[in-house]
């Protein structure tokens, strides 16, 4: 049972905290010789595979690192454009790691704001008056749980669909927030949370929840 990530969104819809607790399993590293038989293209500031799927490297996977060094967007760590680099036979043999592109922090910010708006749609679509916003979003790979406090802060947890006890975990995260973020006088409200104690206690709570989740519905 795994808890994948935690997001905290403030009243205005801005992401103020994000923590990822998972390691993507679908990464493949291979050594290639010239010419490269995969077709790569630019997409959204990343270089992705558009044709030539093979050996675990799928269409849509992004180039994560070249020769062991992580790439930066469309360029290698040294600043050379990746597609240019890979067209030059001099650079071969080259070892490239492909995998599902991880979300950049800007993308996470945008997705959090989008979720904030969608959350409101949940209550607007409701046939009954006074419905809450979206509390749970389910896909085949994960379940997203959202808890909105009376003051408008949202705590969002992405977890394995079979994970139990997320409601208790959301309340616990609220307590940890009210302790280690709010009681820190140097933390300003609505701003990104950069408190060590908050991180540590949150990780501790996630570990407890992951272990307890195996015993059926939590308290």
């Amino acid at each position: 049972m795994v808890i994948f990530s935690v997001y905290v969104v403030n009243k205005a819809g801005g992401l103020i905290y994000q923590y990822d607790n998972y390691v993507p399993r679908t990464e493949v590293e291979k050594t290639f010789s010239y010419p490269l038989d995969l077709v790569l293209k630019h997409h959204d500031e990343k270089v992705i595979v558009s044709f030539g799927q093979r050996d675990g490297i799928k269409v849509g996977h992004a180039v994560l690192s070249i020769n062991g060094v992580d790439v930066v967007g469309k360029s290698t760590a040294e600043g050379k454009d990746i597609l240019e680099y890979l067209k030059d036979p001099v650079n071969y043999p080259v070892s490239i790691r492909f995998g599902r592109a991880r979300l950049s922090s800007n993308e996470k910010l945008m997705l959090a704001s989008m979720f904030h708006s969608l959350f409101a749609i949940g209550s607007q679509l409701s046939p009954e008056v006074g419905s809450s916003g979206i509390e749970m979003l389910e896909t085949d790979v994960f379940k997203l749980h959202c808890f909105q406090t009376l003051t408008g802060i949202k705590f969002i947890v992405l977890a394995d669909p079979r994970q139990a006890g997320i409601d208790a975990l959301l309340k616990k995260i609220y307590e940890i927030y009210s302790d280690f973020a709010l009681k820190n006088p140097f933390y300003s409200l609505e701003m990104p949370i950069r408190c060590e104690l908050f991180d540590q206690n949150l990780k501790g709570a996630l570990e407890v929840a992951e272990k307890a989740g195996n015993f059926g519905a939590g308290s």
Partner: protein
Amino acid sequence: MSRQSNRTTDNKKMSSELFTLTYGALVTQLCKDYENDEEVNKQLDKMGYNIGVRLIEDFLARSTIGRCQDFRETADIIAKVAFKMYLGITPSVTNWSPAGDEFSLILENNPLADFVELPDNHNTLIYSNLLSGVLRGALEMVQMAVDVKFVQDTLRGDNVTEIRMKFIKRIEENLPAGEE
């Protein structure tokens, strides 16, 4: 296996002496810095406001209270749950206005001012004005604009401490989704 939801801080008992002394030191330092009772009252209210906006989340996280339906329920929760939780006292709720938008909290004893006597040159100082700010800040975070005033104060010769709270309006900006 049920998980205890108590946090370790709940079980730590601290004597209230340090709290009383700290608050006293705070007020006297403000008096020295500003030398003007009105100004000190304002500063205490501001400080209380900053405390209130944070305290409300702690209150909501620790109690399982949901949204109050009307101002009467709010008054009851403030007196019976919040004051009990944070100051260990339970003020009584009285003097409702006919419109139901104003009430008084009567405090028999005030833990902030246990050992305090106000000298003559500070007779407009509202010693416990921090509490006004706390109440105002906390309620503002749950979309209620209120006006909080001390109308009686044992430190200024009255029998009881009376805090008057008036509901001004519901704050419609930045309502959390689903609260319309």
